[in-house]
């Protein structure tokens, strides 16, 4: 696959409530049990070719004792409810990921730390190997910009795991489009590729940067549009200007 959308992060003040509400709203099922340090995610598979929404939030309130810029950002953007806070793109090889790292003038976060605590873990004991770029102290998500991922083992990709049954369940058939703030020109400049809108099925609404909506096809059902404000609506990206 060429560069593609891998997943979208939805920051939530209460991932259980948000997943329950999203399921009632859309019929999209989710699975539970994945976590990293003080954060857990409920995963909403969106169908082929393997996309998902991760509903993420703090599940260890004792982490608030040691605040940092990133934790404060999460608290600030979830104070008024769910916000889309990350657009995550995917590539199919480490070589492609390294090319993006070079373009970002950064490095790749490689999944070679032997400590399981530094990786997403699942309730079945699976530890998720995942490489990404750019690296650095401040996530580019805070500026409403996407990062890029490579999964060495795609067979355990989060989008392919089975969901809990839920009432009114629909089977998703894939992302139809994503609505982002900002302009295509800004995104093209960030990624170093022409026409990212067409390639990634993104349309631009001119609002503040970040994801504002996702449209997902569903089997024997009308398309599902999940609309939530972008994180930049709660905390302007200018706060994190270099």
């Amino acid at each position, binding site marked *: *696959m060429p560069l593609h959308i891998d997943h979208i992060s939805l920051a939530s003040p209460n991932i259980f409530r948000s997943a329950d509400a999203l399921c009632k709203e859309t019929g999209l099922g989710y699975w539970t049990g994945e976590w990293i340090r003080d954060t857990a995610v409920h995963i909403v*598979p969106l169908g*082929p*070719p*393997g996309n998902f929404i991760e509903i993420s939030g703090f599940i260890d309130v004792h982490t608030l004792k040691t605040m940092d810029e990133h934790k404060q950002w999460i608290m600030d953007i979830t104070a008024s409810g769910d916000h889309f806070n990350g657009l995550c793109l995917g590539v199919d090889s480490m070589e492609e990921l390294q090319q993006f790292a070079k373009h970002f003038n950064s490095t790749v976060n490689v999944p070679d730390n032997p400590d399981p605590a530094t990786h997403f873990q699942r309730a*079945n*004991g699976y530890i998720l190997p995942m490489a990404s770029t750019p690296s650095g102290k401040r996530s580019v998500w805070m500026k409403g910009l996407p990062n890029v991922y490579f999964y060495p*083992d*795609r*067979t*355990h*990709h989060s*989008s*392919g*795991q*089975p969901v809990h049954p839920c009432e009114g369940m629909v089977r998703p058939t894939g992302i139809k489009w994503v609505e982002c703030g900002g302009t295509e020109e800004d995104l093209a400049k960030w990624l170093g590729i022409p026409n990212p809108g067409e390639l990634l099925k993104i349309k631009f609404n001119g609002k503040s940067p970040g994801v504002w909506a996702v449209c997902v096809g569903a089997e024997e059902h009308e398309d599902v549009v999940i609309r939530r404000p972008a994180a930049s609506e709660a905390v302007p990206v200018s706060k994190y200007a270099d």
Partner: protein
Amino acid sequence: MAAVLDHIHMGSANVYTSAYNLTKTTGIGHYDGGFMSSVTIGHKAVPLGGRGYIEIESIIDPFAVSPDKEPWFYKKAVKAGSEIWSGLCLRVDTMEELDAIAKRHGGTISPKAGRRTRPDGPGVKFWSAPSVPGQGSPWEVGKPNWYCWEDRMYCHPSGQPTINTPGLVNPMGVEWLEMGGTEAEMADWLGQDPKTLNMRFNGKSLGLYAIGVKTDTKGTVEIRRPSATQDL
């Protein structure tokens, strides 16, 4: 790119007991794979680690299949009084690679995609080769075939969760395959060095005879069954 091991087919007379006993004796878990498009074949999948798996199949609706239409692997398993290793399947990444393999064998990619309906998880779709008019499956004569999953590796059968069973081990990939025939014959069929697939050869009739699966606590677990071409 060289093909890699995708899965191993185990023909069975009863998919339920075969899966249950395999898990009980090896500690390697399984899950319900659903049924094939013909709706008469039931499927259980056994993830082996390393992106490979065993698929166990048997007839699950005997009244829907007349004796002359029973799959060959089912008849062979009944005759053997045990499961058989009925197929070895390799995987390539692209349809272009699959097409090249098909052409090398004088055939094409399968005219229709293979499909399996899972009871709970994502639907399963794959393409295979070679498909040669007038010839049966290479599996029946003890030879491997090839699959391509296109962009569906995210829901590959090897990555799905198994049912919970006490005492499961963590399988860590197939370490070796014991094949009939010779290395030279296999190299000719594969178009690649059989060592890249950790194959070893016993000189008997063609087909798969045994596999060794690495595990976290039981060392290498050997699973041996009659091959597809073995005289029973």
